[in-house]
């Protein structure tokens, strides 16, 4: 398929996944604040930290109040990672590959975009924030479902899946990083109702609360980290995302599992096997934050390698043999 098209599908799904995750962060934080005991100030700064946009935020807003943070992450077109900006970018990408994706996918991206645009224009979010963020999540799920059942699981589909899963792995790692970093130091909170509520919020922002309960039962910080990082069955866990992403990458280039033909496969394979054999106790001992930071950096390198392998211009010598045929 065309390199440009592969790139656009990859970014289309990445941006939709990003929009969904931003909605998750905000929604859970809103819920969390409702449960805070009186006297404790609302915490909104971590949401800006998750997306790594602190500088931009400082420049545009200053104080990390609820109103400012929600505005910045939801509808601010000056923030390239706001829900609105993500949808706009996803739709632009979808528009440029309309003939490759199914019309149902295009319609869903378009409807999704129009919904967010209208919400931006009508200020509905202030009135019913939970309803809006739920709608965003559901629209994203619908997109994933529609993609799964209306588009052939061909090369383009695998590029889309790759974009979605890498984005998801990155965002889960960021949710965990910020919350862990902020919540854990309060040793005297361990075991209090507030602590329990906060940890359940971490899980809920990854829709992981119920599945975690089934696996581990009681909430424990190290197990929450274990579940979100290393679980092999939970679809938002980092490890699960990498396994699936690697499957798609290999489907694209048809390399057998355990081998690599290009830098993207090599880097993703390495990172996945690192998680294969990781143990949560070791990670925590060596420093969870350092581990997650390194994970995000390596994930970025995978993205770069994907771009260089499949999208960036290739030397003319690469011309397949068909050229030389005299026809």
């Amino acid at each position, binding site marked *: *398929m*065309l*390199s*440009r*098209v*592969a790139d656009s599908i990859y970014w289309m799904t990445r941006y939709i996944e990003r929009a969904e995750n931003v909605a998750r962060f905000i929604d859970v934080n809103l819920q969390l604040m409702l449960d805070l005991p009186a006297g404790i100030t609302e915490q909104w700064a971590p949401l800006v930290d998750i997306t790594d946009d602190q500088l931009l935020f400082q420049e545009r807003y200053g104080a990390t109040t609820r109103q400012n943070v929600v505005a910045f992450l939801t509808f601010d077109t000056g923030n390239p990672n706001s829900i609105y900006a993500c949808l706009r970018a996803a739709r*632009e990408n979808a*528009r*440029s590959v*309309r*003939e*490759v994706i199914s*019309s149902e996918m*295009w*319609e869903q991206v*378009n*409807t999704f975009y*129009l919904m967010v645009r209208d919400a931006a224009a009508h200020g509905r979010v202030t009135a019913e924030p939970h309803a809006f963020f739920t709608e965003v999540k559901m629209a994203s799920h619908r997109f994933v479902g529609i993609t799964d059942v209306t588009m052939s699981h061909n*090369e383009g589909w695998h*590029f889309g899946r790759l974009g979605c899963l890498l984005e998801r792995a990155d965002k889960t790692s960021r949710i965990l990083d910020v919350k862990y970093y902020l919540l854990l130091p309060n040793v005297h909170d361990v075991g209090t109702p507030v602590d329990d509520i906060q940890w359940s919020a971490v899980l809920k922002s990854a829709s992981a609360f119920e599945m975690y309960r089934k696996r581990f039962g009681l909430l424990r910080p190290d197990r929450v980290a274990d579940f979100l990082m290393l679980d092999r069955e939970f679809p938002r866990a980092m490890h699960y995302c990498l396994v699936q992403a690697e499957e798609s990458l290999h489907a*694209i280039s048809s390399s057998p599992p355990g081998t690599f033909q290009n830098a993207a496969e090599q880097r993703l394979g390495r990172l996945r096997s690192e998680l294969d054999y990781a143990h949560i106790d070791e990670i925590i001992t060596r420093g969870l934050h350092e581990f997650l930071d390194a994970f995000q950096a390596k994930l970025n390198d995978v993205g770069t390698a994907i771009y260089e392998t*499949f*999208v960036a*211009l*290739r030397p*003319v010598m*690469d*011309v*397949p043999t*068909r*050229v030389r045929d005299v*026809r």
Partner: protein
Amino acid sequence: MQFTTYDTDGFFDEMFEADGHPRAGSALLVQRIHALAEGELLHRQRAAEQALLHMGITFNVYGDEAGTERIFPFDVIPRIVEAADWAIIERGLKQRIQALNLFIDDVYQEQHILKDGIIPAFVVQSAKCLLPPCVGLQPPRGVWCHITGTDLVRDRAGQIYVLEDNLRCPSGVSYVLENRQVLKRTFPQVFEASRVRPVDDYPSRLLEMLQYLAPDGVTSPTVVVLTPGMYNSAYFEHAFLAQQMGIELVEGRDLVVTDGFVFMRTTKGLQRVDVIYRRIDDDFLDPLTFRPDSMLGVPGLFEVYRAGRVALANAPGTGVADDKVIYAYVPQIIRYYLGEDSILPNVPTYVCWDDTERQHILANLDKLVVKAANESGGYGMLVGPHASAAERAVFAERIQANPRNYIAQPTLGLSRAPVIVEDHFEGRHVDLRPYILYGQEIYVLPGGLTRVALRKGSLVVNSSQGGGSKDTWVLAGESDAC
């Protein structure tokens, strides 16, 4: 909603006779509309608009930052063309396209028509869209204008005329196909009972025609649609056609010329391209041959084309026959190459380079429509009766400064068709753009884009100037399949 108060105002109406009775082919539709419950038609109109918005059937408007994308306004009342009228249109278009193709071929080769004095040589030589690099070139299978979207209009008397030929990259066919999808849902029963000829096989026919152009020896050719990109006003259509044909939609940056062939950049390396349905203007196709500042084209493409290693549809150079001064000679062109009279007449056209005609034009600017020879989209024209004295003075000056560049035509009282305006029907002026494919043979799609000038009294139907569209139902005759 009822047609009881509908007024044809002395114009030819596509739906009603002058006495207020529906025309034969429209009777069923009118009856059905009258039978709808109050508010039902408006409800269907809104449902249709909603469907178009969600399908993303939009066009881009240049120079309008905030709302660069809009749906093409759409009216649910179809425009009906009866079988007898269509038979004439179809024969007339085939004749015209055949003659124009011969003309273009002749212009770039022997120029017999100029040597025989049928058209003054300077008129052709000064045509803005005459492309010197095409001189001596023979396009694949001898066809230049593969896809044409001829604009037809009707006057007060009901006579059909050709207004423009549009031999370059005519757009709009995607609306024909999408409007039909929407209308089938809007009026399913009438549609079924009316024996409307189908248009849905257009993409298959287009693909078949494009494959026919492939270089010799290529058995399963790679065909692509070349678009200027997603910010082009017709991008939706480019994507739509590529999707419907199941072929790649490429931009200039996706293509590269190497070793004398054209390739596209794919995730698995370079892949050869054999036929390009290009929706980029001639000037921008190849910066090495045409405009050097073009960022949209493919450097070296024209040389590959000259060598016969890639086919381009339409062939570069067809624009010469779109020049409105050359349009004035089409009846002579048809007689010269085919020895026949035109089946579809031209709108009477005065050319400003001729001293006598120019005097007549300048003296009658308040009655005429003046057009620049190479503008389209409703730009660069003066509708005399609707213009102010100052506007007419500007055009008089332009004509005198550059007479070769202008023509004038009588202001036609274009036919009208009813459209929904708030809660009632009003007549609006319409034209009709059928689409013609020229491959192994000439094929006329039985349908077309009916464009409506939605502003009351306006004669300009272009989408950039407040135009909308209607579905066009060509009714089957005794011998037609439907």
